[in-house]
């Protein structure tokens, strides 16, 4: 079959157009759809540090979600915890920072990134990014490969190295399931509470109001106001993950 250059170019152009149709329609569709929520959290370290040694956010979250208290640090399961400033922001350190500041404890949790590497690598979509921004977990589908743990640059994910029920004295709360051994778990921004229009447990439990939760897509929300009023930093911004947890200075 003979085809001249003009015909070939015409065919190629038409094919390219054909290939571009679906993605273009999808992009346009996305713009036309009502802008969805974008859940985010703003942490005010100054307020958090008001109460020395306070761990109420952690206690509230872990109790309600049946997170097993495990003593061995290697096998710890934690959805939210307090980390030393120099460890939460390792690239922000310099030799002249006051030692006292370096050791100040800040709450850290899953950042529910805009561009989550853990979601990219999960082979079964047991973790995925919802339309409202939450990086969600499906403990039924997780095969326990721990690829997501390797991909997360923040160490936010925990694995159940053994049966969590072995570490929980007494009966766990029946309002929320436990997990089985061999699956990865993490904070899910209390999506079960958000469904009932309630704020996440850590936010409610904080006596100083250091954790503010809200919708970034709503320009009048408290989180947006806070981020407008004060400079904020996020963990490891150079990695392009675009965390949804901000720390205001």
């Amino acid at each position, binding site marked *: 079959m003979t085809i001249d250059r003009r015909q070939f170019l015409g065919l190629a152009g038409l094919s390219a157009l054909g290939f571009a149709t679906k993605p273009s329609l999808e992009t346009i569709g996305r713009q036309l759809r009502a802008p969805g929520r974008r859940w985010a959290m703003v942490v005010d370290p100054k307020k958090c540090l008001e109460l020395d040694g306070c761990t109420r956010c952690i206690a509230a979250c872990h109790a309600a979600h049946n997170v097993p208290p495990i003593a061995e*640090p*290697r*096998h*710890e399961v934690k959805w939210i915890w307090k*980390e030393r400033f*120099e*460890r*939460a922001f*390792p*690239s922000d350190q310099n030799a002249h920072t006051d030692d006292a500041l370096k050791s100040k404890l800040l709450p850290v949790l899953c950042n529910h990134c805009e561009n989550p*590497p853990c*979601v*990219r*690598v*999960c*082979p*079964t*979509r*047991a973790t995925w990014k919802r339309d409202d921004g939450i990086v969600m977990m499906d403990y039924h*589908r*997780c*095969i*326990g*490969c*721990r*690829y997501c*743990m*390797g*991909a*997360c*640059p*923040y*160490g936010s994910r*925990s*694995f*159940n*190295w*053994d*049966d969590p029920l072995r570490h929980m004295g007494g009966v766990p709360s029946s309002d929320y399931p436990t997990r*089985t*051994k*061999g*699956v*990865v778990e993490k904070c899910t921004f209390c999506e079960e509470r958000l469904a009932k229009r309630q704020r996440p447990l850590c936010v409610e439990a904080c006596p100083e109001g250091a954790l503010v939760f809200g919708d970034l897509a709503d320009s009048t929300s408290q989180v947006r106001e806070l981020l407008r009023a004060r400079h904020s930093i996020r963990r*490891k911004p150079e*990695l*392009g*993950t675009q965390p949804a947890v901000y720390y205001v200075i």
Partner: protein
Amino acid sequence: MLQKALTGSRRYWTWLAALAVLIVIGFAAWLRQLETGLVVTGLGRDVSWGLYIAQFTFLVGIAASAVMVVLPYYLHDCKAFARVTILGELLAVAAIVACALFILVDMGQPARVLNVLLYPTPSSLMFWDMLALGGYLVLNALIAWVTLSAERRDEPAPAWIGPIVLLSIPWAISIRTVTAFLYAGLPGRSFWMTALLAPRFLASAFAAGPSLLILVALVLRRVARFDVGRQAIDTLAVIVAYAMIANVFFLLMELFTAFYSGIPEHAAHFRYLFAGLDGHRGLVPWMWTSVALTLVALVLLVVPRLRKNERLLAGAAGAVFVALWIDKGLALVVAGFVPTPFDQVVDYAPTAVENLISVGIWATGTLLLTCFYKIVIAVRTQG
């Protein structure tokens, strides 16, 4: 044809029995792990992948190295490898089976492993790795079966196997590349975040695999009076030499970019490996042993007079295999996790259960390889 694996000398059966003992012990250890959970390993929140995945990574390289004997023979008519290609292909089959077993024992919920195929996720390299390895297993098993059956019947292999053999060549490269991609795209792990990771994986595969083939060929000549030929062994040795040079070169390149750039994040992993970090020096003796073995092996391989000496060649091949096992089967995975995202240095050491399971899987691969090679020898000597 498979029944040829069932007849053998006393030495053959003793060897198989010894392997079977290791397999049974490893299996029992795995049952314990299934019952209790991965808490029986030395893994933890910070070092979440360890011995199992490292063995898997190393064995993918061994499997891919079959291409190093297939390519010269089928594409470049290198007659020396006429009797070796089947050994390479069967090595690939045994290695892939061992790979699959290492993945299986590392899963937290192994019964759900088919979810990877039920819910395909193209963005995940693990999905592609499963497809690539599965496909490679099928390819090599098919090639080995068809060519060996043809040889048994004293016929030329059917023509349709030709394109399949050709397909296995880029496929072998791809399994190694996909496995490197598992590591090379993770944003928080700067030790693995290098464009050089896939080339390093390939270079080490092309050194470790043929080294193993050399050792196996020498063993087969001794215990089974099966000779692949002087030239085949020599050519394999040359391949190993070049691949080792590439390996060392790549490592030096990594060291340069890590240390000359001065970026602490990049250099920290190498410091941890070669000098220890924050008092943690667990891997330092291993790494320097690997370096020493590499240098010795290089000298023995590059100098022709030494390379042609079979005793020294066996030593060199063994040194290459061990050196690369330390590098890929131990250091690579652990150093990726240390220092942690919190800039902390933690230790990882496999537990007894982990070691027993790993030994059991290596024994399984070796058992398969032994049976496969028994069949090959039986077919070859009968003709």
